[in-house]
C-alpha cells in the first residue's frame, strides 16, 4: 500500500522512525496485534476497567480545568489569586491527563484500525489538539501578564475568551468520547466469541451500543 504520497516529507519522517517496509496502516495493524492489545480484547474485565479509570481521569481533568476556567471568567474563587490557584490545581490536572492518556491509548490498541478511521474519534482528537493550542496561546499571551491581573476578580477579556473556548472544547471532547462508544462495535474484532453474553440478545437495544442496529436474534448457546 503506498497511497500516502500527498505529504512526502511527513511520510519520510515516519519512515525514518519505523522499519522501512512499514506503512502507517501496517503500524496500526501491528499495534492491534500486540500481546497487550489482544489480552485486553480477550479479557472480560480489562476493557470495562480501562474505561472506568478513563472516566475517573477525565472527570478530574474536566473538573479541575473548569475550576481554573471559572476563576478566569470571574465566576468562582474570585477572592483567590489566579496564579496561586493555577499552580495549586493544574499539577493535578496533568496527573489526571496522564491517566486518561494511558488508559485511552490502551483502549485504542484493541481496535486501532477501526478507531483511526472513525470520524467521531478523529473529531475528538482534533478537539483535544485545539484545547492544547488554546492553552498554549493563553500561556504565551495573556498568561504572561497574569502578574498584573493576578488578584483581579475579573481578568482581561482575552483570558475570559480562552476560558470559554477551553470549557466548550472540553465539553465537546466528553461528548465525542461518549459518542465513540455508540459508533464502534468492539465485539466485531474480538479474537474469539465473548463468553455467553446472553442478555444483549434478550434485550436488543437495551445495552451499551443501543443506537447500532441489534443483530438478528440467534439461539442461545447453552
Amino acid at each position, binding site marked *: 500500500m503506498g497511497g500516502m504520497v500527498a505529504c512526502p516529507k511527513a511520510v519520510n519522517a515516519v519512515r525514518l522512525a519505523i522499519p522501512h517496509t512499514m506503512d502507517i496502516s501496517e503500524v496500526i495493524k501491528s499495534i492491534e496485534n500486540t500481546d497487550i492489545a489482544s489480552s485486553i480484547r480477550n479479557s*472480560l*474485565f480489562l476493557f*470495562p*476497567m480501562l*474505561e*472506568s479509570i478513563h*472516566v*475517573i481521569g*477525565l*472527570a*478530574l*481533568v*474536566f*473538573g*479541575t480545568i*473548569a*475550576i481554573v476556567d471559572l476563576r478566569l471568567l470571574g465566576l*468562582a*474563587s474570585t*477572592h*483567590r*489569586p489566579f496564579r*496561586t*490557584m493555577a499552580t*495549586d*490545581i493544574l499539577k*493535578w490536572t496533568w496527573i489526571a491527563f496522564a491517566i486518561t492518556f494511558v488508559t485511552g491509548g490502551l483502549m485504542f490498541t484493541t481496535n486501532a484500525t477501526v478507531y483511526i478511521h472513525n470520524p467521531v474519534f478523529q473529531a475528538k482528537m482534533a478537539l483535544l489538539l485545539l484545547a492544547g493550542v488554546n492553552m498554549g496561546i493563553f500561556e504565551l499571551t495573556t498568561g504572561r501578564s497574569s502578574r498584573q491581573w493576578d488578584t483581579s476578580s475579573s481578568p482581561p477579556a482575552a483570558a475570559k475568551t480562552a476560558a470559554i473556548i477551553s470549557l466548550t472544547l472540553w*465539553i465537546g471532547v*466528553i*461528548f465525542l468520547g*461518549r*459518542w465513540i462508544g*455508540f459508533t464502534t462495535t468492539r465485539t466485531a474484532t474480538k479474537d474469539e466469541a465473548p463468553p*455467553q*453474553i*446472553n*442478555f444483549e440478545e*434478550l*434485550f436488543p*437495544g*437495551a*445495552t*451499551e451500543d*443501543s*443506537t447500532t442496529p441489534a443483530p438478528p436474534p440467534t439461539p442461545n448457546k447453552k
Partner: protein
Amino acid sequence: MNDFALWLSQTYPSVLIQTNNAWAIPTIQSIHIAGIGIVLASVFMMDLRILGLAGRDQTLRQTTNRFGPWLMWSLVALLVTGVLMVIGEPVRELVTISFWLKMFLIAVGTLVAAIFLRTLQKHDQRWEDAMTKRLSIKLMAIFTFLVWLAVIVLGRLIAYDHIWGAWSPARRL
C-alpha cells in the same frame, strides 16, 4: 423490579427517549459525565485540602464554601440526568447489580459529605484547625474519595453487568 422496568419501558417518556435514542442517550450521558467531573473535582479539592496537599492558602471553611455548593448542585444535576437515563433504558439500568451497588454508595458518599459540611458550618475556626490535624478526618477524606471512585466504576459497569457472573440479575432474565 423486572416488572417495574418493563412497565416503565412502555410509558410515554420512556418511549420518547427510546425513539430519539440516537442522540438523546449519548447527550444525556455526556451531561452526566460533565456533572461527574464537577462532583469528583469538588470532592477532590476538599479532600486534598483536608490532607494538606492542595489549597493551603485557603482555610478549610473557604474551601468548602467554594466547592460544597457546587458538589451538591452537581449531584442534583446528576440525579436529573440519571433519572432520565433510567426512564430511557429501564431494563439496562435497573436489572443490574452495578446500578444498585452504585445507588448504595452514592447514598453513603452524599450522607458523609452532607454531615461533614453541616458540622463544619456549626463550629468556629479554632475547632476547624484542631480537627484537620486529626488522623480520623484524614482517613475519612481518603475513604470518601474512594467511595466516589467506586461510584464511577460501578456506573460504567452498568453497561457490563455480565462481569458479575451469577450475581448479575440480568443473567436470570
